[in-house]
C-alpha cells in the first residue's frame, strides 16, 4: 500500500460522512431554494428567485437571531471569564477537579429538560412570585426576550468556560511573576499578559457559542412562548406547518450565508488581534 492510498483510506470515513451528511443535503437545499411550493405542500422544481425576493418577510426572525446571538455570546463571555480565571489561576488545586466536574454536571441532563426547568422558574409561580413577595409586583419573565437570554446563557455557559479555562491553565505562571517583579500592578499584568494570552480560548469559546446560537431553535420555542422567534423557529414552521419547502430552503441558505459572512469577518478580526499581539511580544 502506497503512502498515498493509505492517506485516502484513512480519510475515507470522514470524507464519506462529510459528503453524505453535509454536501449532498446542502446541495438539495440549495436546489430546492429555487423551486416553488407544491399546491398541497412540499416543493416542485423550478428556476425562480421568488423565494429569495420574499426573504424580507422573515426580517424579524433574522433580526432577533442577529441581536440575541451576539448579546448572548457576549454575556456568556463576561460571566464565563471570571469563572474560568478562578478555576485556572486562583482555585486550590485540591478542589480544582471537583469544581471542574461541577461545571460539567449539568451536561449530564439533556438541555431540553434543563430548559423546561426554566419554564417553572420564570413562570408566574417562580421568580416573579418571589419578587412579588419583596414588593416588586407585576413582573413577567416567561415568554420574553429576557427569558430566552437567560436560557441561552445558562445552556451555553460551559461551552464558553472550558476553552477559556484551558488557555488560562496553560498560561506560564512565571510570566505573571516576572510582570509583578518588574513592578506591574495586578490589573496591568492582567491586561498585558493574562488577557492577550487567553485570546485563543476566548476566540474558540465565542465561536462555539455564537455558531450554535445562530441555529438555536429549542430555547426560543420553550422560553419565548412562540413570540421570540429565531430563524431556526421560522425554518421549523416553514417545513412542518406551512410546508413551503422552497421558501424554507431559501431561508436556510440565507442563514448559512449570514453565518459564513459573520464568521469570516470574526476570524479576520481575531487573526488581526493575534497579529498585533505578536507585534507587542516582539517589542
Amino acid at each position, binding site marked *: 500500500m502506497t503512502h498515498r492510498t493509505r492517506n485516502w483510506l484513512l480519510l475515507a470515513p470522514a470524507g464519506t460522512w462529510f459528503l453524505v451528511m453535509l454536501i449532498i443535503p446542502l446541495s438539495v437545499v440549495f436546489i430546492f431554494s429555487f423551486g416553488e411550493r407544491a399546491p398541497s405542500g412540499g416543493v416542485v422544481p423550478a428556476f425562480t428567485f421568488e423565494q429569495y425576493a420574499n426573504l424580507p418577510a422573515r426580517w424579524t426572525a433574522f433580526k432577533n437571531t442577529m441581536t440575541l446571538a451576539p448579546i448572548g455570546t457576549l454575556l456568556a463571555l463576561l460571566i464565563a471569564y471570571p469563572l474560568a480565571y478562578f478555576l485556572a489561576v486562583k482555585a486550590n488545586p485540591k478542589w480544582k477537579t471537583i469544581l471542574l466536574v461541577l461545571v460539567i454536571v449539568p451536561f449530564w441532563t439533556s438541555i431540553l429538560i434543563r430548559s423546561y426547568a426554566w*419554564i417553572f422558574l420564570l413562570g408566574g409561580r417562580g421568580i416573579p412570585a418571589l419578587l412579588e413577595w419583596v414588593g416588586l409586583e407585576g413582573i413577567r419573565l416567561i415568554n420574553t426576550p429576557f427569558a430566552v437570554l437567560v436560557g441561552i446563557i445558562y445552556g451555553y455557559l460551559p461551552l464558553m468556560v472550558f476553552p477559556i479555562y484551558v488557555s488560562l491553565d496553560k498560561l506560564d505562571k512565571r510570566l505573571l511573576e516576572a510582570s509583578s517583579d518588574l513592578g506591574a500592578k495586578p490589573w496591568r499584568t492582567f491586561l498585558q499578559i493574562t488577557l492577550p494570552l487567553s485570546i485563543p480560548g476566548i476566540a474558540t469559546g465565542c465561536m462555539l457559542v455564537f455558531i450554535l446560537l445562530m441555529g438555536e431553535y429549542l430555547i426560543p420555542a*420553550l422560553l419565548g*412562548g412562540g413570540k421570540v422567534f429565531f430563524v431556526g423557529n421560522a425554518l421549523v*414552521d416553514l417545513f412542518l*406547518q*406551512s410546508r413551503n419547502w422552497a421558501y424554507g430552503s431559501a431561508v436556510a441558505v440565507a442563514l448559512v450565508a449570514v453565518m459564513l459572512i459573520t464568521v469570516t469577518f470574526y476570524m479576520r478580526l481575531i487573526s488581526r488581534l493575534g497579529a498585533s499581539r505578536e507585534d507587542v511580544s516582539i517589542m
Partner: protein
Amino acid sequence: MTKDIDHISKTEFMEKLESYRKGSITRRHFLNVTGLGAATAVLGATVPGLRPSPAFAGNIGDRVVVATWPNYHDPANFEAFTEATGAHVQVNVFGSNEEMLAKLQAGATGWDVYVPTNYTIEDYVKEGLIEPLDTSKLPNYDASAFDPRYAEAGSVDGTLYAVPKNWGSTGMAVNTKHNDGKPISSWKEFFDITMDKFSGRTMVHDYQLTTIGSALNYHGYSFNSVDEKELADAEKLLIEVKPHLFAITSDYQPSMRNGDAWLTICWSGDGKQLNTDIPEIHYVLGKEGGEIWSDYFAIPKSSERKEAGYALINFLLDPQVNAKEVLAHGYPTADSRTFDLLPDSLKNDPILFPAQELLDPLEFGAAVTLTDPNRAELMARFKSA
C-alpha cells in the same frame, strides 16, 4: 412468565404522563418541541429492546402503533386490548394535522392507525397516503349508528377511508376570576379584551386553522375564508394583538392551570378538562361562529401491521369501550350506541353537547383551509413578526 417485571406497568406509565400534564409539562408541548413523536415511531420500529414481549403475541402481531392527539384515549382501554389480543399499543402524540401530513408526505412510516380530522382526509386520499377501509374487518362499525354530520367526511367519492372517532368544537376558555366572574361570548370580545385588561394573558393556538379562523370570525367573516382581502384584515388584527399575547401555543393547559394565562383559544375536550378541575375556567363558543370538527380513525397505506390496525379500530368502536374513551377525553361521540351508555351528567353537559343555537353558526374546516398557501404563509408571518 415474567411479563412486565422489569419495567413499570403501562397504567402506571400513563398515570405518570397524566400527572405531568396536570402539572406543567404536557406531552403535546414536549413532543412538539422535540419531534419525539416521530422519533419514537422510528425507534419503536427498529430497536428490538423496545418491543414488547413476543410471548403474548397473538395472530395480529405483537404490537400496533397509533399516531394520535394528546389526552385522547383511556389508557385502560389499550391495556384491555393488549390483554385480549396480545398486541401492545404504542402511542405517538402529534401537535397538528399539518405536522402529521408533513411527516407522512415526507415518507415517515411505522404507524398503523392514525386520527385525521375531517378536512384532511380528502388530501390524504389525493396524495395516496391512506388505505380504503374493509368494513368486514370492522364488525363494530355500524354506519347507521353515526350522526352523518360527523361521519360523512370519512368517505371520499363513495369509498370509505375513515370511521368517526369523536367530534368537538373550537371555542375559548376564560378564567372568569379576572373578569368579575363573567365569561365572554364572542371572538370580538376575545380579541378586544386581549388588547385591553387581559393584555399579556391571552394565548392563541400555534395552528393556522383556528388562530386565523378566530381572527376572521372577529370581523364577521367565515372561519374558512381564503379571500385575500379578508385574510389581510385577519392578519392586521393578529399583528396588532401579538404584543398583547402571552404565548402562541397549542399547549395551553399548563399556563391556564398555573394562572399565568387567563384566556385561550381552546378545544372543547381541553375546555371540559380545565372546567372540571378549575370551575372558574369556563369554556364558551364564540357567537360569531368558529369551528366544529370530527376526528376519524384511518389506516395509512404504509402500515406494515394492517390486521392489528383493524383490530384496534374495531375494538375502540365497541360502544362499551368507546364510552370509556369519552369519559377520559371529554369529547362528544357521534355514535348513538355509545351516547346511550353515557351517564346523564355527560349527556346533558353543555360543554360536550352545546345548545343547538350555539352550534348553528359553527363551521366545519374545509380541505382548502388547511392547504391554502396564503393562510399557511400568513400564520408563519404572524409568528415571525
